[in-house]
């Protein structure tokens, strides 16, 4: 089932920059969708539009099958169910302590204070930030801030979580932690939308992909279909993931047979090789 559907969406900024041009996309529920594209392709604009921060100039936006009419009630419902983890945690973290930052969303949802405490502890545990509860946010490292910003969204228990460039500026350990978190969220049935330039990372975690170029959607489908389509990959200036290249080379050289279940990681390829 599609949780998000955009039909003929157009959006132009005040300075006449057309950020989104006739966008038609669908996002499947409980799946991970990556949004790929160059800088300035319209990814961040699309995210703010999905959260209802900006309103399209024309087109139809459906969430959970219902048309979003941008009334106050509708926006509240939309923002409750679609959380955004912004690229720069400094632009997201506002409160003076980690606890207050995580509690910010639930308090806006008017959840009683005794329940908020449990929610905050639970979501802080997910991203391993419980020990920083009373720490002023200025004293946190970039990775810690990133985890706090993710926690603050998890605390709102949204159906969809949008991650804007989540792996940017993170070290390998943090990236691995992030990967485990995605898997955990996916298992919980949360729809994940990720914008990234890290093709390897995208290939590893995504089920579906959307490719944007100059504000237009040039691909919306399964990630395996994306890399099977040379024209789209070239047009969107993407690179093939090393795992994908290696797998295809191994097939070409007849070292392994096509399993029709594309490996996503080096470990997957090792498993296939071990079975040869």
């Amino acid at each position, binding site marked *: 089932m599609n949780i998000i559907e955009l039909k003929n969406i157009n959006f132009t900024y005040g300075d006449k920059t057309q950020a989104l041009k006739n966008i038609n996309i669908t996002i499947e529920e409980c799946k991970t969708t990556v949004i790929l594209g160059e800088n300035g392709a319209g990814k961040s604009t699309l995210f703010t539009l999905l959260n209802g921060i900006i309103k399209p100039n024309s087109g139809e936006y459906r969430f959970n099958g219902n048309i979003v009419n941008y009334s106050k009630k509708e926006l509240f419902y939309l923002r409750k169910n679609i959380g*955004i983890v*912004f690229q720069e945690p400094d*632009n*997201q973290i*506002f409160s*003076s302590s980690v606890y207050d930052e995580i509690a910010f969303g639930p308090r*806006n949802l008017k959840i009683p204070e005794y329940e908020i405490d449990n929610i905050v502890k639970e979501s802080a545990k997910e991203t391993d930030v419980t020990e920083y509860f009373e720490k002023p946010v200025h004293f946190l490292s970039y990775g810690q801030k990133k985890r706090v910003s993710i926690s603050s969204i998890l605390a709102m228990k949204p159906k969809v979580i949008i991650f804007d460039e989540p792996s940017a500026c993170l070290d390998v350990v943090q990236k691995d932690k992030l990967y485990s978190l995605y898997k955990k969220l996916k298992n919980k049935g949360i729809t994940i939308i990720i914008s990234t330039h890290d093709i390897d990372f995208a290939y590893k975690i995504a089920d579906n992909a959307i490719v944007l170029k100059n504000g237009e959607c040039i691909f919306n489908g399964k990630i395996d279909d994306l890399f099977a389509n040379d024209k789209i990959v070239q047009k969107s200036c993407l690179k093939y993931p090393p795992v994908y290249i290696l797998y295809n080379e191994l097939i070409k050289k007849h070292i392994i047979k096509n399993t029709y279940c594309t490996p996503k990681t080096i470990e997957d390829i090792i498993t296939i090789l071990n079975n040869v």
Partner: protein
Amino acid sequence: MKYFIEYASYNSKLRNFDTAGKLLLSISMLFCGICGNNIFSLIFILCTAIYFTVFKSGTDLIKYIKMYISPAIFIILGVITISLNIYTERTGIISLPFFANKFICITENSIKLGVITAIKAFSCISSMYFIILTTDIYKITGVLQKLKIPYLIIELMFIIYHFIFVLSERRDCIILSQKSRLGYNGFMQSINSFAKAFSSVFILSFIRVSKIYNSLEARCFDGNFKFSKTDINKKEFIHSVIISIIIVSIFIFMEVFL
């Protein structure tokens, strides 16, 4: 020095002491500072606040003294203004001719008034420094909310506090980038760079503020900040009440008898 307030409050030995109690103590000292007219009683308040902040809380003394530099400049200017008076005849300790048979004079009374005003200002500042250097901002907002202080004031306090950091972070980034490209080599170059930094710090801060606002809106922000409520520890609060009563009593005694 930028994050000193947060650093000091986070590492304060009195951090976990009841916030309402500390606030009461701070306000009592502030009230004494405002009402006091005796130099000894004001010095007593100043010393008490310093004692609690530096010795009891463990605040770094050097950095604490440095925090007085900026208010000291304004206080000294104020004291000079109070001490100087214009008279039609020579009077006081020092008198200098001004114009049209008028003299700028410094009298004993004006010096005394200036000194009392300065100590009064410093004792009030030290009382406020006591609360901000020993307590996290979110705990202060929590107690203020419990004390039914108008919400607008708490919100303003919180927003101002937050945006001081936004502005100072932006300023630091710009100055660092200018310094890395020899932007402060020579007097004229420094003035030029400073002017550019000054003009762009507000524009960049404005852009950041709009991004922050987007992130708040994305989390159902309805225009009202909701702060955590701080619980009152009765035992510690009673401790603070007793200490406050002692301080105020000593202060009154000094005011009356010295």
